[in-house]
């Protein structure tokens, strides 16, 4: 039988290709184009070559922001992933409590970033905020506008409050998909709670956990709105993460060239890390480990 080859359907893809080119590819090319030039406004550009890239890779300011960014992502992952698993394992498995629990867990996820920032900005204030005022009444010297440790504490707790539910819900979905027979077999074998977790629940949650880690890592690595609203990057530069620094440079100082070089390096780091996560994920799946 002769198959008819007709590739005309590919033209159907054209609109989306044009749309992506207009909204993503050409803007990215524009950033590359700005990164090798300098401007003083009035839309006049001057060739700068690789100067901005040289400045960025040697810049103390960039290194510091990058370091803070890695620490922030590592800290929130180290808290949110185990906490999410713990919550998921203690959520009700059946009955009326399931929908109640799911709705309550989803609430933080529904709140927009800037609103979360505003909530915590007020919550932590020493004069009118419940957390700030209560802590100070109890004799704890807490002030996120003045103390670096307190600022980090607030930003980290805020992220944990906002996003642990996501990890918990993903893990809960993974746990619910384990057939009861596995647990019965474990009971017959006299397996301990730890053994059930280590050899049944954790392997069955691996897929959703990798997605949770990937999502939380990328989101936390790009975080902007919440810390910007709460601390504005301060005190000093203590909570100035990469995106906050980038916006300061691009919009505050209107240094388009250096900001373009900055965003390209930032983009390359995210691209590399996402590729590593993705590759590890898909290859673990293939090996079925």
């Amino acid at each position: 039988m002769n198959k008819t080859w007709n590739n005309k359907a590919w033209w159907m893809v054209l609109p989306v290709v044009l749309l992506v080119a207009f909204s993503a590819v050409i803007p990215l090319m524009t950033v590359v184009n700005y990164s090798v030039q300098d401007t003083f406004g009035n839309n006049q550009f001057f060739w700068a070559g690789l100067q901005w890239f040289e400045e960025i890779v040697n810049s103390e300011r960039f290194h510091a922001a990058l370091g803070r960014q890695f620490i922030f992502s590592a800290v929130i992952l180290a808290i949110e992933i185990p906490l999410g698993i713990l919550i998921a394992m203690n959520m009700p498995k059946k009955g009326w409590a399931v929908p109640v629990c799911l709705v309550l867990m989803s609430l933080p996820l529904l709140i927009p970033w800037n609103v979360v920032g505003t909530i915590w900005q007020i919550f932590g204030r020493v004069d009118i905020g419940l957390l700030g005022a209560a802590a100070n009444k109890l004799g704890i010297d807490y002030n996120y506008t003045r103390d670096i440790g307190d600022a980090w504490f607030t930003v980290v707790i805020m992220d944990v409050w906002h996003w642990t539910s996501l990890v918990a819900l993903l893990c809960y979905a993974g746990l619910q998909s384990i057939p009861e027979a596995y647990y019965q077999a474990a009971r017959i074998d006299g397996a301990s709670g730890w053994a059930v977790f280590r050899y049944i629940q954790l392997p069955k949650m691996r897929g959703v956990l990798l997605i949770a880690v990937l999502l939380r890592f990328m989101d936390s690595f790009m975080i902007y709105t919440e810390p910007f609203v709460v601390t504005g990057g301060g005190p000093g530069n203590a909570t100035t993460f990469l995106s906050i620094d980038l916006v300061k440079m691009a919009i505050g100082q209107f240094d388009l060239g250096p900001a373009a070089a900055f965003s390209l390096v930032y983009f390359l780091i995210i691209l590399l890390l996402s590729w590593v996560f993705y590759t590890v994920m898909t290859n673990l799946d293939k090996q079925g480990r």
Partner: protein
Amino acid sequence: MDLSWMAWTWQTALFFSLIFLTLVGMGVWSIKAPQAPRLGILRIETTPGDRLFISLLGSAFICLGWLAAFGSPLWWAVLICLVYAFAVFRWV
């Protein structure tokens, strides 16, 4: 159509033309001589497209590393990138 407001330079045009030509070349190559994914020294399955991606991404970091260590020009870094890309296509 006047595009001068976008301030394009011939250097960026050349850069993107090279990448575009590479993509087209890889496309033609994959049609002429289709290759199955294979396991390389990284123990991950890669297609020629994956290897191009690894080469380009790695080259970007080699160039940034060169700029951090020695500054411009990048000619030697480009040479290292070519050797690196060859190695990726050969062994990864």
